[in-house]
């Protein structure tokens, strides 16, 4: 039950008869007031008794299953009037605030008995994960629009909001580098660990060191009698290597650096690396880990890999618990028994919080190639340079201390045989991809 502005206006219009009656006397004015109030209340009661029931309504939803963060989708809601009266409804769809509903969310609908109407809402979710809706509130007005009935109906729905994968803009350039490695372009890069692919004719730009003189001797040039064709060997990088990406979802991942939580940066970096590695023919597994397995993608390849990864990542948020690094080698062993590239996406910024990581690393580095990728805080570098007054100097000193700690941890990680990649949030994904390409080019996988 509720009343409309129209009813308040109707009440206010009572001033006219009350004043008109009041000219002849106070008693008449009071009578006019009582009469008007009775009239208005009677009209309201009549109106609400003629309103269609907001409960005798069937609801249906049509929602897209998935949406990438930042994109806009159309959510449709159909309202079917099961009652015998015309439903003059205003409908509010009870989406979570982070579903990013555009507009005032008050949709007027006029549904004749037995028919249904469809309303569309534009949603632009601004948070990753499952965005849910549980209820729809229907306010059914009477024919005069004075009073209305209101009921909240259960109408559950869900949209899965996937990580945005902004770093895919870096993918084409890295794929070009990968193709260079792959021998599909004339320019060849030769290195250890690359596999012999084929022999073909020399074209300008090839490395002269890759000319195979024995093959050249066997290939006489038919156009020039006695002449030879220069033949070069082509190489291709190793394929079918295992890559295990472990994203740390513990309390350090909740830290927000440059307006992006560490976890989101880790997801971006994982997605870029996975896209690149699956193009390069390597097999990628993904683990999200703190004290338990929060998410796992195993045995997927090609386009399915990325789809499954974003789906797994969508629902994972950082938790305020300490990571249990001692179980990570066991988790990696369950994924693969072969030598693999293990990428740990975590925060390595203070000796105290990295102790678990450091004590576990030797177990991994003895079997695998390990990269520890961490986000650096650009605000620290900035604060380290500002020395205007006393407060800034102390802040600069604290920032320097943080940078020194980060450097010490990185040095310790390198001493334990792992590689480190650290960069500001937006540069970490390409930096990690480049490190992967370097490893691939030098055949260290």
């Amino acid at each position: 039950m509720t009343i409309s502005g129209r009813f308040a206006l109707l009440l206010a219009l009572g001033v006219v008869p009350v004043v008109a009656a009041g000219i002849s006397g106070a008693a008449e004015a009071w009578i006019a007031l009582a009469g008007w109030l009775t009239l208005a209340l009677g009209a309201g009661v009549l109106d609400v008794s003629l309103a269609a029931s907001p409960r005798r309504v069937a609801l249906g939803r049509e929602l897209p299953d998935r949406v990438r963060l930042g994109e806009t989708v159309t959510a449709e809601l159909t309202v079917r009037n099961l009652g015998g009266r015309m439903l003059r409804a205003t409908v509010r769809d009870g989406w979570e605030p982070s579903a990013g509903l555009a507009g005032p969310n008050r949709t007027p609908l006029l549904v004749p008995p037995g028919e249904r109407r469809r309303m569309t809402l534009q949603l632009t979710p601004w948070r990753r994960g499952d965005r849910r809706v549980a209820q729809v509130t229907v306010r059914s007005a009477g024919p005069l629009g004075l009073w209305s009935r209101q009921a909240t109906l259960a109408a559950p729905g869900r949209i899965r909001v996937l990580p945005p994968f902004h770093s895919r803009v870096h993918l084409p350039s890295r794929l070009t580098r990968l193709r260079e490695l792959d021998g599909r372009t004339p320019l060849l890069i030769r290195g250890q660990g690359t596999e012999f692919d084929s022999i073909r004719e020399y074209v300008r730009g090839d490395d002269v060191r890759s000319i195979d003189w024995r093959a050249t001797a066997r290939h006489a040039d038919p156009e020039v009698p006695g002449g030879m064709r220069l033949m070069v060997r082509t190489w291709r990088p190793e394929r079918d290597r295992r890559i295990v990406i472990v994203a740390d979802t513990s309390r350090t991942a909740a830290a927000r650096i440059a307006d992006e939580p560490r976890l989101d940066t880790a997801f971006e970096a994982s997605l870029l690396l996975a896209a690149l590695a699956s193009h390069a023919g390597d097999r990628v597994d993904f683990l999200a880990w703190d004290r338990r397995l929060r998410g796992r993608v195993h045995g997927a390849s090609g386009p399915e890999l990325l789809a499954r990864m974003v789906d797994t990542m969508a629902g994972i948020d950082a938790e305020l618990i300490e990571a249990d690094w001692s179980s990570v080698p066991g988790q990696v062993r369950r994924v693969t028994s072969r030598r693999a590239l293990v990428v740990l996406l975590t925060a390595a910024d203070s000796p105290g919080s990295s102790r678990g990581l450091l004590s576990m690393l030797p177990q991994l580095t003895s079997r695998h190639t390990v990269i520890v990728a961490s986000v650096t805080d650009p605000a620290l570098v900035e604060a380290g340079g500002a020395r205007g007054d006393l407060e800034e100097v102390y802040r600069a000193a604290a920032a320097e201390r943080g940078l020194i700690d980060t450097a010490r941890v990185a040095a310790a990680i390198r001493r334990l045989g792992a590689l480190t990649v650290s960069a500001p949030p937006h540069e970490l994904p390409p930096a990690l991809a480049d490190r992967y390409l370097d490893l691939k080019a030098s055949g260290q996988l």
Partner: protein
Amino acid sequence: MSVAPSAASLADRPGGSGSAGAPADQTDAATAMTPTFRAFVRRRRIWIVFAAVLVLGAVVALAIQGGVRPPGMTLGADNPAPLGAMALVEVLRDHGVSVTESRSLDSAVDAADRGATVLLYDEFALLDESRLDRLAGVAQRLVVVEPGFAALEALAPGVRLAGVASGPIDDVACELPAAERAGGLGDGQRLLTVDDDARAAGWQGCFRDEEFGFALVSGEGDDDGQVTLVAATTVFANESIDEAGNAALAIGLTGASDELVWYLPGPGDVDANAAPTIAELTPGWVSPVMVLLIAVVIAAGIWRGRRFGPLVTENLPVHVPAGETSEGRARLYARSAARVRALDQLRIGAIGRIVEALKLPRSAELGAVTDAAARATGRDEASVRRLLVDAEPGGDRDLVELAAELDVLEHDVRDTLRPRSAGRAGHTDPADSTDSTDPTGPAGRRP
């Protein structure tokens, strides 16, 4: 572009263009989460019963107590409250004085005609001058308690209000029998003054509070009636009548005759010819319109305030600003004034970057670093060493200066490695040498 939600008509298509689930759902009414009125009553039954019992209990208690009792009038003859005067009235009745309560001037005048003593307490100054004169004209003995300005003007010109007494009064200062019997008055008296004209007219004051005034003034009215002015109600009030000689004075003043009229002017004594009230000035429809406006405001409040369905809750993830640790450490340094420690952090950072810039080995000793930095920037080696190692900041200003110098040194080291700055240095050298080797140059240009 419009982003407002839009409604579109949907024809009843047999196949249904929507998702597979929607048409099947459309036959059943959605489950309502809002309880119906009946369900609401059933669920809240206990509370409704509880509230009903409370209301019923309150009504019963009210009925037993006999309604809401108004706070009794000040100096009411039947008021047992601290400010009432029931004690005095009861004592007088016990001693055979017939006390008549009166709320109207006519009945008081009638009784005064029969020779009764009249006690007048006009709390709200309801009586005008003519009514006071009428009463004073017929009363043989008139006791006026706490007379106001208008009453004094009418009854005793020349007697004026003079504020509050400083404490109990024991200086009787007159020969009034009642006053002499009382001997003194308790605390909380008010004072009156008697000017020379009034004194000449026969007014005399009793109970003098030093030179400030009198608590009681008596004299003869215009028509030979005895008029006594008591400046405060404390002499008669229940709570203070037992102090000092209050009771003796009160009984002496009021018990002088067999009959006493306890006259507190009521609404009937107001002068009907006074200025019209606001209610008389405004037209008759103003009050109904105000009531109507209140109703409109309530209706508008419900219209705007009624919530459109329950609030939607959302679980928000934890996000910690990463700079907190660093900020906290900076505040710790500042609070403990750890200047040396703070400066050392800056030095370690600066040395690290200088080593990197000058391509020195990571294991280079400190001496080698300061030496290399001094050579690169062309500074004195000792000053560089002081800046990077030895200097201890004596105060906050020192710390800020040293930190800024460190920054400058670091920039200088980096600048010297840039080819552009080296070229500029080479260019300035000859200019310097010409200035120094040709002293006649400037002199020759001098006029």
